[in-house]
């Protein structure tokens, strides 16, 4: 079974308030070029978190 069709998905009471990706979004999740760009973008975000952690470290006298 591939990804559940939207009408079946939202007919299920537990799923009716969720969101699911459409055809374009599903394709972009596996588009090598786009995903490489996203990986670089996430890499920069990650470096930002690491630098922020380092900035927040401080020495506390005993």
């Amino acid at each position, binding site marked *: 079974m591939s990804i*559940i069709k939207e009408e079946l998905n939202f007919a299920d009471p537990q799923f009716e308030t969720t969101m699911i990706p459409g055809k374009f979004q599903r394709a972009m999740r*596996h588009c090598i070029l786009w995903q490489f760009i996203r990986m670089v973008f996430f890499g920069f975000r990650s470096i930002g978190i690491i630098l922020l952690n380092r900035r927040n470290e401080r020495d506390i006298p005993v």
Partner: protein
Amino acid sequence: MTRVVVMGGGVAGHTAATFLKKWLGDAHEVIVVTPNSHWNWIPSNIWVGVGRMNKEQVLFPLAPIYAKAGIDYRQSKALSIHPEGDEQHEKPFITIEYTGQNKEGQSEELEYDYLINATGPKLNFGATPGLGKGSQIGEHTVSVCTADHALHASRELQEIFNKARRGEKQKILVGTGHGTCTCQGAAFEYILNIEHEARKAGIRDKVDIKWISNEPYLGDFGMDGMHLGSMGYVMSAKLLGESLFAERGIHWLLDAHVNEVQEGKLSYEQIDGSEGEEAFDFAMLIPPFSGVGLKAYDKAGEEITDKLFLPNGFMKVDADYSAKPYAEWKASDWPVTYHNPDYGNIFAAGIAFAPPHPISKPRKSPNGTMITPMPPRTGMPSGTIGKAVAHSIKNLILNGEHGPLRSASMAEMGAICVASAGTGFKAGQAISFTVYPIVKDFEKYPGTGRDTGRTYGEIGVSGHWIKYLLHHIFIYKAKLHPGWTLIPE
């Protein structure tokens, strides 16, 4: 020569020991006490659990690494701490019992100047009847907490898939096995990977997959959820979690404390006091965690375990443990330097330190059953805390008793997480997200408790590439290959 003893060789203990040895050199002694012969990159156990990696890919032997680093490695488990010494020992010491190195069962007393408790958790399967006994998993369910558990889970899963291939309808249950579990993220990754594998095998319609968890809503993860910036939107992790499950046809059962596990079924209680049963052919349930059960004794030999540890077995550090209602919880309750308030030469890092309280809102059923996810402190926070503790001890050794100590509060710390949703260079997917700070701080961020500019997530095959890269990068770092200190925790 000062001696630092590190109890535990996981992410926190290994990080602390290796940095200490690098900074202190041969002038001081670093001893690692761990019952394990191998280091395990636990995040990849998920892939062992679905048969996409073998056990050897997530493990490597510790002895040659510690021999290379000049660290004294004792394959043994710590049994007790004597922070004041005793009649025979002027110095504080711990007792250990060997589990390897051809000394199995032998005991030893190991004096220390500084002690780091980084034992990690006891996998407390025994807390739920039928889930296991003590720290041993039972026969009705599987786990991915260790590489051996994951290998067993993979074999059991293949049996289920084989039955599905023969046309037999199968029911798979994944989640938490107790009302106070943490580590929902591991179970979340595992259920998505199982679904991915079932779809790839063409048997998805023969396999009913369901999530059972102690979380109040999907995406809580023991962190009280989060609000993620994503492609121009800010959305709750609840919406993300539910959408990921809906997209994959996975149903969920939340607010559940598993009462008992039997062959092929479990019973549970929910937050409203209602009870139910769930049948399964295959179940992976994360056990609750507790401390490893270390005892402590004073100079006279009187037990002082409650002075060093909370009743759950985790070590007391510089946190505010006073009982307060949820509305009064603050980011400043969380520990900053992880030293024990009574014994300044004892530190705890990683899962071994006692959090002041959960991050998620505490909830009890009308029967008094606690159904609250406990806070996660694995992975990046474990490594960061381990390094900060090593920094503090280095300062104490080199500068004298005034330190200073290095801070690493989880309320001022961000984390990078990658949750796998399936493997494959082109077909794989993972949710990559950053969270800042890990512990919500409503004084700084009154809206969601976190910085929504820095709390971010998205799904795609790039997440899988990142997780796969991290697998190799962190094993490279843990093996102390050239440049290992440049790789962040």
